[in-house]
């Protein structure tokens, strides 16, 4: 099915169903993310670290990946990505409440340390940057078995200062491995602005160093993100090697629930960024395109909020980890 208004600016050539799904995925993540903050502010969850403002590029890649076949080495802002791939709001509520059935880590790690074996989402730790090398190794193994699986990995622009960034790009490019390196550049590493982290504003410039394509995309433009994600994924799947994608995104919240960005960013800028929120922008675009009819967005939201309420009830009813399990899983139990 073609887009309802093919003369409108749908550069990605996407059908209405895909566009709606893109929007729904973004909204679903946003609503869950907002709920996490509420839980934190209510004192029911000691910590949250948000993906608000980063959703579009994650959803775009998520919709182009094959869940359970492709490999994912994400970072802590990738809430939206994990939902697209098949994790559920309940999964993450179990995590933020540190319950035993949290599929990410059984309540062992801080929230937003994603992992799900069933979906080939490898377990994420806190050290920034290490996951990029894991992605190269994941892709190497697929390649050695002759599979066309791709490995997606993501990182903030701050994390690209770590040596592992260079080592991973260098290795993946040398062997033309199917790795999607996605940098979610929100301009800050906690309080440090990009100018103090790196000499040029665009991380994508570094692709030249590795002889691979580097793409900058507006991370608030869902359709552009989708197009870039599709191209990079197809390229990797065809065996043509890695792509470095840099999405310029907004960090619509403080770094985490432990941070207060008003200490180091001006209120005007923060206000202005709210206006550029990709979720709002995309809704307006879809309404203009007629993909969303009047009332559609509200209905979608209401349905998603119902899902969320149910998930929260279930998560809160779930048991905490048994203290006796603290010693388990240091080494394999079935050796």
């Amino acid at each position, binding site marked *: 099915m073609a887009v309802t208004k093919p003369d409108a600016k749908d550069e990605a050539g996407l059908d209405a169903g895909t566009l709606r799904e893109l929007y729904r995925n973004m909204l679903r993540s946003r609503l869950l993310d907002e709920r996490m903050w509420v839980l934190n502010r209510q004192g029911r969850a000691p910590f949250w670290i948000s993906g608000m403002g980063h959703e579009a590029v994650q959803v775009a890649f998520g919709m182009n990946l094959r869940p359970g076949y492709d490999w994912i080495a994400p970072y802590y802002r990738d809430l939206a990505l994990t939902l697209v791939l098949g994790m559920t709001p309940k999964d993450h509520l179990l995590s933020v409440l540190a319950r035993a059935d949290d599929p990410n880590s059984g309540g*062992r790690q801080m929230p937003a340390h994603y992992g799900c074996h069933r979906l080939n989402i490898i377990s994420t730790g806190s*050290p920034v940057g290490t996951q990029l090398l894991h992605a190269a190794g994941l892709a190497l193994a697929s390649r050695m078995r002759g599979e066309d699986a791709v490995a997606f990995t993501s990182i903030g622009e701050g994390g690209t200062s*770590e*040596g592992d960034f260079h080592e991973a790009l260098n290795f993946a490019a040398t062997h033309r491995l199917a790795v999607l390196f996605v940098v979610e550049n929100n301009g800050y590493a906690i309080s*440090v602005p990009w100018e103090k982290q790196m000499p040029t504003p665009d991380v994508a410039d570094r692709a030249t160093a590795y002889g691979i394509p580097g793409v900058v995309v507006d991370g608030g433009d869902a359709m552009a993100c989708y197009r870039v994600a599709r191209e990079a994924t197809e390229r990797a799947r065809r065996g043509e090697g890695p792509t470095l994608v840099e999405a310029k995104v907004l960090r619509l919240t403080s770094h985490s629930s432990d*941070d207060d960005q008003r200490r180091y960013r001006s209120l005007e800028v923060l206000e202005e960024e709210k206006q550029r929120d990709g979720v709002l922008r995309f809704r307006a675009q879809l309404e203009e395109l007629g993909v969303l009819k009047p009332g559609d967005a509200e209905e979608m939201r209401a349905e998603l909020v119902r899902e969320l309420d149910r998930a929260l009830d279930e998560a809160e009813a779930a048991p905490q980890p048994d203290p006796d399990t603290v010693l388990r899983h240091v080494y394999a139990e079935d050796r």
Partner: protein
Amino acid sequence: MAQKTYLEAIRDGIREEMERDERVMILGEDVGAKGGVFGVTDGLQKQFGEWRVLDSPLAESCIVGVAIGAALNGMRPIAEIQFQDFIMPAVDQIISEAAKMRYRSNGDWGVPMVVRAPFGGGVHGALYHSQSIEAIFCHIPGLRVVVPSSPYDAKGMIIGALRDPDPVLYFEHKRAYRAIKGEVPDGEYTVPLDTANVVRSGDDIAVFTYGMMVHTALEAAERIAADGFECEVIDLRALRPLDRGAIVSSARKCGKVLVLQEANLAVSVASEVSAIIAEECFEHLDAPVMRLGGPEIPAMPYAPPLEHAYLITAEKVDKALRELAAY
């Protein structure tokens, strides 16, 4: 003398030394406008400018490697690592470079650098914001490793570290930052980087420990004192080199020993203290040297029941002491 928190004492020491010595500078993630994630360097960038309090890229090898270079060229850098857990990418620069510079150059070059990092758990920090990983550095000749437990020592040892001609790892217990208060003199003073400190005298059981566990040990010692057992609590403070003399003398005096730490036990500071006592106090011991430390799991989990299962509480210490007393 003013009453200060552990955190304020560290900051005072740094600030005063920066005022006295132009060569002192700070390099680390978020040390500037934010003042560090815990606020230790709060206000320092404003006072000393963007060069002397430099927000680094997110790259620990860079932080320490650049600090080494600056130290070789006359500066006295503090390399701040945001959490001790994230010191790992800098291990090569610390162990292969800083620790060996003087020896490999036959005494020609030294690295007067301080690496600061918060460690320890009990703050819902989970696996990567709770670790106590100091042991790996305590194995390395050429390094000094210190852990103050009181505001007094915190200030005196950071000044001492900044004046030391060799690389010093200065680890701060993050739970102490605001929880521990004490008297801190104004103006300059130093606390030596190689002596232990007897914080409670007694002659029944010697408890060797460091960091927040000093306070836990004191609490447990008071409990068991009610039953007539007097513990000597020794704050090791200097983890490399250890104060062998102080260890041997308290162990011999008491005849019973508990070595206590938050860190994992295997191949750790507690192992070394225990080994020193086994070497030197054979004829003075009345019981096996007992160790109490973190369970053998990678680090403290997030969920409160699991975190609590890791933590060493005064109850657990009390229980260990009573076992020893009964031996």
